[in-house]
């Protein structure tokens, strides 16, 4: 695939769909409640109004396609952290680590849920970060805002060593080991977004995770573009490490690449250098393909040995 715009648009659409899915799952409790209490569209309209009736009827229609609507609806649930869609479980690797650290054992369904995310990371690398992560949509828009504001203001571009995110992962696991409870809903941006959406739509309250989202957003705006994704998010670091030899990644046609151009390395939200054949941590967002003047970059399967640079090991 050569067009960076396609990647960008597809990534925005998929992330929007994930956010909408989270909102819908949080709102689905309402449908379940109506189904159990009334089981009748007219009664729903009388008790909750016309929009609710439409919501109820459409949801009923959709879930009826797969069998009993109540049972099918209850096959979905959770957040990006640990989610079931039509009965298929998906587990975050960090959540598996935390359960191992706290409980010293894992259920078989939980382990099976790891297959999907790990396979995705092994084939496409860190693709979770720019196609699925609900928080990265927020950070993406903040990086655009930052780019706009840079016309008038000066923001520094900080960089930390990438060991910091490993440290966050180790620190969170140590908290699990030492205290027997996790603090991941404050540490992980996508979990915090899930909690905030769920608290807001299902209970109508403001989750404490919202404040960690605010902190992450401020860090993103002031310290660097997608600062959280690069240096603070332990999941991104872990997935980047798992997918460091991913099958599909960004590929450069060396003869067409310009020397001293550096446009791709400047635009890259993960601050990797495609012009030096660096592929670790690439989330396939496609920004470098847009700015490349000779269009020598493409997303393609990479077979064979990879160059290892100092940056890619960090």
């Amino acid at each position, binding site marked *: 695939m050569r067009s960076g715009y396609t990647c960008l648009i597809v990534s925005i659409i998929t992330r929007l769909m994930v956010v909408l899915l989270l909102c819908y799952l949080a709102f689905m*409790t309402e449908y379940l409640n109506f189904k159990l209490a009334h089981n009748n569209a007219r009664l729903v309209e009388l008790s909750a109004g016309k929009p609710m009736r439409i919501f109820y009827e459409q949801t009923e229609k959709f879930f009826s396609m797969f069998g009993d609507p109540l049972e099918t609806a209850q096959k979905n649930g959770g957040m990006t952290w640990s989610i079931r869609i039509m009965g298929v479980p998906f587990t975050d690797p960090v959540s598996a680590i935390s359960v191992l650290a706290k409980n010293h054992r894992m259920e078989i369904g939980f382990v099976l849920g790891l297959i999907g995310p790990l396979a995705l990371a092994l084939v496409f690398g860190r693709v979770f970060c720019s196609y699925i992560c609900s928080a990265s949509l927020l950070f993406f828009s903040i990086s655009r805002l930052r780019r706009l504001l840079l016309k008038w203001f000066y923001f520094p571009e900080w960089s930390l060593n990438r060991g910091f995110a490993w440290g966050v992962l180790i620190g969170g696991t140590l908290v699990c080991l030492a205290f027997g409870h996790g603090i991941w809903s404050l540490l992980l941006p996508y979990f915090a977004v899930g909690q905030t959406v769920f608290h807001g739509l299902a209970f109508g309250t403001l*989750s404490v995770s919202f404040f960690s989202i605010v902190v992450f957003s401020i860090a993103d705006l002031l310290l660097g573009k997608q600062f959280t994704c690069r240096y603070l998010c332990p999941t991104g670091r872990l997935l980047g490490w798992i997918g460091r030899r991913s099958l599909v990644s960004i590929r450069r046609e060396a003869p067409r690449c310009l020397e001293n151009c550096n446009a791709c390395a400047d635009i890259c939200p993960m601050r990797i250098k495609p012009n030096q054949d660096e592929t670790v941590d690439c989330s396939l967002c496609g920004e470098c393909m847009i700015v490349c003047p000779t269009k020598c970059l493409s997303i393609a399967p990479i077979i064979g040995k990879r160059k290892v640079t100092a940056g890619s090991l960090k």
Partner: protein
Amino acid sequence: MFGSGYIHEKNNSPKFMQSRASSPREPLLDNTRMNGGWKQKLLYRVTFLKSVVLGAAATFLLPLLEFLPRKAGFKRWLRPPGALPESEFIKACTGCGQCANVCPNKCISLFGLEEGLGLLATPKIQARAQACILCMACTQVCPTDALEKLEPTEEGIRAVNMGIAVVSEDLCYSYSGRTCGVCYRACPLPGKALRLGLYETPIINEEFCVGCGLCEQACVHMPQAIRIVPRHQLNDPLQQTEEPTKENNRLDSVLDRRSFLKVRSKFHQSSDQVNP
């Protein structure tokens, strides 16, 4: 030739497009290949380890949030049905919220920081607001088996242990001669967990009561005359062999008549303020 032309173009590009690679905060090693020398490798490793320690230390400071001043929360919350014992439950629960998501009764909500960091994102039920109807949907979906799988049959219901109902005889209408019996009609195990005496006075059988809280939700008296003492506040008679500590001795204080009277007078004051 071609390359230099591009550089000229790039310098004319707006400020935000220009390279920031030469900023002074850029790490020294960023552009260097790993095949430098052993000194560079060592320097790189030391920087990396420093960052790891820094990150771990920064994260380990977060539990200090526990010491933030906070309002006294609502202590009498219940866990969803089938929950493991409290200490094991906290270890097993990941806070994914699937139980709250499938609850058709909207009785399960998730904790914030109001009860401390340990309970963050774990599920709770407040019986007076919305009690559990024991449909067992949450137990079926829990991915880590923090909620044991139960069926919504009578056997499944009997296996639930969320707490035990306690009647405050001073508040109950039936005990003061005005026949009520609402709690009996709400009970999922009527005649077993909750029997009726003369004038429909509720009598709890602790052996059968699962603590679902339907009686507490249904109670027509304000404040409720029947309430669930949650399992984590309950002095389990099966674990009486342990030395009584502050933690497991809490039921005595809850069931203590004096404290009940204190609670009652407090509730009376508050209800007087609301409804003089």
